[in-house]
């Protein structure tokens, strides 16, 4: 099959997927910002893999989907992972708890929420730890760009990244504000962690991904602070390589999508 991968990079997990799929006999093209032109010329592929959540790739994904070419993960669900409010509602639908949050200008926060410090500021349209900052004072708030409008109540506790691939789970303790590539220590998943992942993947039919969570020190309650549907699995702590598993899941999902469109 002729497969396209929409990805920011040609290397790392994307590169490994390309090699694995080529070894299975497929013809694979990686579309990065260098060669991704979004028009009907893209449509001569049998299916696409949406690896990146950046805007042009999401647009390309939506274009490909609407034109009837199978793509996985679903571009609309991927967009919702990236948008903080959509992600909040995805978590709410699945019955997961996330921190209380607020939307407003810096002035509105100062005028109405000073007593709520510490807060965590995040970009409205960016998942992960990029641009995440702790707000302990007006000075911290003043240092932010004007376009920052999303704030969460800071949860005091331990941060974890929880990867899942089908029924396999790998959990690691994550340093605050770090990316998934930081050095992390594996921990055994607790029962409530397993339940959270089950609720998430079952409700939204997500076969692999990750959830960033914080276990609150005072209550042991787990808050989900960030979902992701296509991590690099840098801290996947099991001995086996996640790449072949992911590729095979995608190949199966594409077959299902093709059957459903017939």
């Amino acid at each position: 099959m002729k497969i396209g991968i929409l990805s920011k990079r040609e290397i790392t997990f994307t590169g490994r997927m390309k090699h694995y799929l080529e070894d299975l006999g497929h013809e694979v093209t990686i579309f990065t910002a260098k060669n991704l032109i979004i028009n009907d010329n893209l449509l001569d592929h049998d299916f696409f893999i949406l690896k990146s959540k950046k805007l042009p790739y999401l647009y390309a994904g939506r274009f490909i989907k609407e034109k009837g070419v199978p793509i996985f993960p679903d571009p609309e669900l991927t967009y919702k992972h990236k948008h903080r409010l959509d992600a909040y509602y995805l978590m709410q639908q699945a019955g997961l708890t996330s921190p209380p949050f607020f939307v407003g200008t810096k002035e509105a926060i100062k005028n109405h929420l000073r007593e709520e410090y510490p807060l965590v500021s995040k970009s409205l349209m960016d998942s992960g730890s990029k641009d995440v900052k702790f707000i302990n004072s007006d000075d911290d708030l003043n240092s932010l760009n004007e376009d920052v409008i999303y704030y969460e109540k800071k949860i005091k506790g331990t941060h974890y990244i929880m990867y899942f691939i089908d029924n396999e789970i790998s959990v690691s303790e994550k340093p605050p504000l770090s990316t998934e590539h930081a050095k992390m220590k594996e921990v055994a998943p607790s029962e409530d962690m397993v339940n959270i992942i089950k609720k998430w993947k079952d409700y939204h039919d997500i076969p692999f991904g990750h959830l960033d969570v914080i276990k609150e020190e005072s209550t042991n309650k787990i808050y989900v602070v960030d979902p992701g549907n296509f991590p690099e699995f840098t801290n996947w702590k099991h001995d086996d390589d996640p790449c072949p598993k992911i590729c095979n899941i995608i190949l199966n999902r594409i077959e299902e999508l093709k059957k459903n469109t017939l």
Partner: protein
Amino acid sequence: MSEFLTYLKTISDVSIYIEEDLLINYSNINFDEDIFFVKGKGDIILSFVKMIENETSIPIINSYHGIWVAFNRFINCIMLEKAGIPIPAYSLNPEEEPPPFKNYIIKNLIDQQNYAFKPKIEKRYRSLKVKDERALNEKGKYNYFFYQKFIRSKWEYKIYRIGEDYFYYKQLPVLVEPDKMKTRRTIEPNPELKKLVIKATNTIDLKIASVDFLKSKKGIYYLTDINSTPNFNYIQNGPVLIGDYIKAQAKR
């Protein structure tokens, strides 16, 4: 807005939520409005709209989806094209890639700010290149340009939808006459345009909108722009029509 608000206050109680002062607290949602009308498309306003839709049963005009799709040019092109509405050929290209068409307009990808179309025109032998200044200001933000194939048309057609009422105008294209109101005139209701406007606004879920068309030499109307927050002062008695429509949609 002032004329509209003055009228609205004579027929209902009005609370105004201004983006700069608005603080949305998702753990404390309590509103007693019977309807919300949205005159804006900034991220805070949109967050408010999303919250109202998800947390209450209060009607809201326009919907989050409608507003969002209307300002995302590429997404609305995909949806309108799929619905069978003629739109000019389009392409989203990396900034360094050559243009995909001989005659084209580069438009801003995200039309979320309230700035008017400001074209930079380059005419060469048998080719026309138009770049909207707003698109050039996006340079470096997305690293992509949104190209739309240029449609030559004597007139630009502008149709307003307010609920089930339609208002028809034409004017010289802005590229010919930058002062769009100078040549604007009312035209007779046009069934073909009405059908296209109904299909387009229903496709992206807009109850109040303005929709622009250009007519090709072959007589095909191409939809070139759709706006969820039109300036209804341009419609005769517009503020009253909008006010009455909103009141009629309220839940009580």
